[in-house]
């Protein structure tokens, strides 16, 4: 090697040392000194707090485990790193990121085979609920977007056949439970905007088609689609699928509110977060504050709460809905046909529903779930609590 080469290679060696240690030290220092946040809106999750070192946490290894999570959660430029990873995954042709499939123009969820013993328990609980009460019970199991768009994956990983799953559940329900099948109503509009591209929920339009299909069985005359005054409440909605993948190749979602043509009537909406405490009261089912944050779907009746009551000021019966969050956006169509709607979420209720509401108040009950949450549900069996 020539002398100048030797000198040059020595300089390169020094540079490589500076890059290697400099890289670690700079990011480590920024991570230590930057202000820490408690919650990541983008990812929709609470960030790990700084663990406390004590003999106990050291020896049971919780300190070291949590410190590792803490460093990752507060790492400098975390979102940029997550973006980079998701970009690499897409570039190398990975079709699935964190349980979400990336399609050309939308994200869909991977719905695996459920544990049928849990499903059977849920079915049994609904049957028992129907037997115990005098009012008619309706069941609406809504397919999720995966069912209608999964064919777009060239080679599809075997997914739950939601048509068969709905049939399985409906055939297990007692005859006196009225089954509302909205599969075809959604399937025939799959080319319209019936599901969000970046979120696991249905859009207001999707909910409308289900509402229209349910009218006959539930005994109301649905409005025509043209009846509504549609408001584009947001066009920058990034939903839960986005949070899981941070995929930016899919367009942001638009969120629509379906208003009465002559303006919404004032209503009373009571949200009870904790039993025994006073409910939060508002005069609209639209919680516009949530339009300014990431979780915009919560602008329909807020985030999931154990019990929500809507006094609509309209004529009609009283409806009890046992539900997941699909019912939130669905409710905007029901307010015209019922005087009072109560939504209860079994995931947040640990005691018998009879202790929370007076069942004799209600004229109808609707069980409304999407297939994915029903398939993984272990809370409906709490309907059996006495």
């Amino acid at each position, binding site marked *: 090697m020539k002398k100048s080469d030797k000198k040059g290679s020595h300089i390169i060696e020094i540079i490589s040392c500076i890059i290697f240690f400099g890289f670690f030290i700079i990011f480590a220092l920024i991570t230590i000194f930057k202000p820490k946040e408690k919650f990541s809106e983008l990812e929709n999750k609470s960030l790990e707090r700084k663990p406390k070192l004590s003999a106990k946490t050291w020896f049971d290894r919780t300190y070291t485990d949590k410190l590792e999570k803490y460093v990752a959660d507060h790492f400098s430029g975390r979102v940029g790193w997550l973006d980079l990873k998701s970009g690499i995954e897409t570039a190398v*042709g990975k079709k699935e990121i964190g349980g979400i499939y990336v399609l050309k123009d939308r994200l869909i969820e991977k719905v695996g085979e459920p544990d049928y013993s849990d499903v059977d328990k849920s079915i049994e609980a609904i049957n028992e609920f129907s037997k115990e009460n005098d009012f008619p019970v309706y069941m609406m199991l809504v397919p999720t977007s995966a069912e209608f768009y999964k064919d777009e994956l060239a080679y599809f990983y075997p997914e739950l056949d939601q048509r068969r799953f709905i049939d399985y559940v409906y055939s297990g329900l007692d005859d006196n439970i009225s089954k509302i099948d909205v599969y075809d109503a959604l399937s025939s509009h799959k080319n319209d905007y019936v599901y969000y591209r970046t979120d696991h929920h249905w859009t207001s339009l999707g909910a409308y088609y289900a509402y229209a299909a349910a009218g006959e069985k539930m005994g109301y005359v649905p409005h025509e689609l043209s009846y509504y005054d549609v408001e584009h409440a947001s066009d920058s909605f990034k939903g839960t699928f986005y949070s899981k993948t941070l995929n930016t190749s899919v367009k942001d979602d638009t969120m629509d509110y379906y208003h009465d043509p002559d303006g919404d009537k004032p209503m009373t909406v009571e949200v009870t977060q904790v039993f025994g405490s006073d409910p939060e009261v508002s005069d609209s089912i639209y919680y516009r504050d949530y339009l300014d944050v990431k979780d915009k779907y919560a602008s329909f009746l807020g985030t999931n709460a154990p019990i929500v009551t809507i006094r609509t000021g309209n004529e009609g019966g009283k409806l009890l809905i046992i539900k997941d969050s699909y019912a939130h956006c669905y409710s905007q169509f029901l307010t015209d046909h019922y005087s009072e709607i109560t939504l209860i979420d079994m995931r947040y209720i640990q005691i018998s529903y009879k202790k929370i509401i007076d069942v004799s108040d209600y004229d109808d009950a609707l069980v409304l779930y999407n297939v994915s949450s029903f398939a993984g549900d272990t809370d409906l069996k709490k309907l059996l609590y006495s």
Partner: protein
Amino acid sequence: MVFSSLVFLFYFLPITMLIYFVLPDKFRNIFILLTGLFFYAWGEPKYVVIMLISTAIDYTAGLLINKFNDKRNIQTVFLLVSVIMNLSLLGVFKYSSFIITTINSLFGLNITDPQLPLPIGISFYTFQSMSYTIDLYMKKIKVQKNFFSFAAYVTLFPQIVAGPIVRYEDVAREIDCRTISISKVSEGIGKFLKGLAKKVLLANNIGLVWTQVKAMDYGEISAATAWIGILAFTFQIYFDFSGYSDMAIGLGKMLGFNFPINFDHPYLSRSISEFWRRWHITLGSWFREYVYIPLGGNRKGFARTIINLLIVWSLTGLWHGSSWNFMLWGFYFGVLIVIERLGWGKILEKLPKAVSMLYTFILVVLGWVLFDTNTLTDAWHFIGAMFGANGILGDSTALYLLASNAVIFALCIFASTDIFTKFTDKLQQQKPMQLKIAAIAAQLIILVNCTAYLVDASYNPFLYFRF
């Protein structure tokens, strides 16, 4: 602590190295000991005591073997103390569950399994410190009189949890006197980052495929799915383990040590014997040195050679984990090597390269089924599925797994060959400066990409904790 973690890379490593570089030479061994204990206690806050006890006993045994230089019988006693102590530690912490369940099922007894958790790296550090007392007894090395220097050898953090199994002989000189230079640190950085990329970018990603397939029902999967799954594991274990060894060797270089290489493109081997000369080389040479040769090796006639081979390979299997799967896995290779010794090896040499390489690779892949399925029954069903026992050759699952991971598979195959190494070796001859500049660019890319994967660490297992 593991190398592929943010706390190690961004905090432990720069702090340790910077202090180490500025420290006067005479304090460096003590510093290595302290950092090694901290590194180990991070993952094993309680069992660090066991390691210290074992170190103290081997150190003392070493002194005594040295002291009674002319009394062979007394030396033998102290050697036995060291060997029995190390093997008992392994026996109690690694094999007690296996021994108890075996005894229970053989004799219909009901002895309670204490279910002791396996201390990290116990299989590595016991083997390392045994190499010291045995070699001392064989008069191959000189005694280490400084406790801190000996303890620094055992607790040297680069190799403490997952090897390579560095024999005392390998580093005896460097323990007492080593030089640290920019050029060695820079060389170590290159090696370390190569290993980090293997582990974080290749092994973790291809490992996800195997995690999916492993969880499926082996009575239903298609032959193609089974093959894709076990091939994914084939690459995962190679890049995980060899990546870890590379990182250890790189860190060793930065500290001034030269550890022996542990992997040499094993999937290019043309026979099973060759595979084991290229895979986990330090383990193979440990067993050859301390078990096979003392048993007589191949010098006591043909029948004894075969028996010795089978013993060594069953033990090698058992070293990897305490279950019948591992024992059988080792025995399987023992049998294959015996067959090669019987003349099949000569035929393999004459076959076209592609044929003998494919032969070896397929047998190794079948071995991985034994290695990573949970029971012998599972292994049997899985191998059945690979050969069409479920009556389905291919399905959409297989196509999906392949399509979704085609790029990663291609990268893994490429990185298993020596094409890239040959290419860089050639550049080293012709354009060394350009190669160095390209290497820096590559290192920066690796740093950035690995950080992205570690910040979002949804899947970062560590396969060697159970050894």
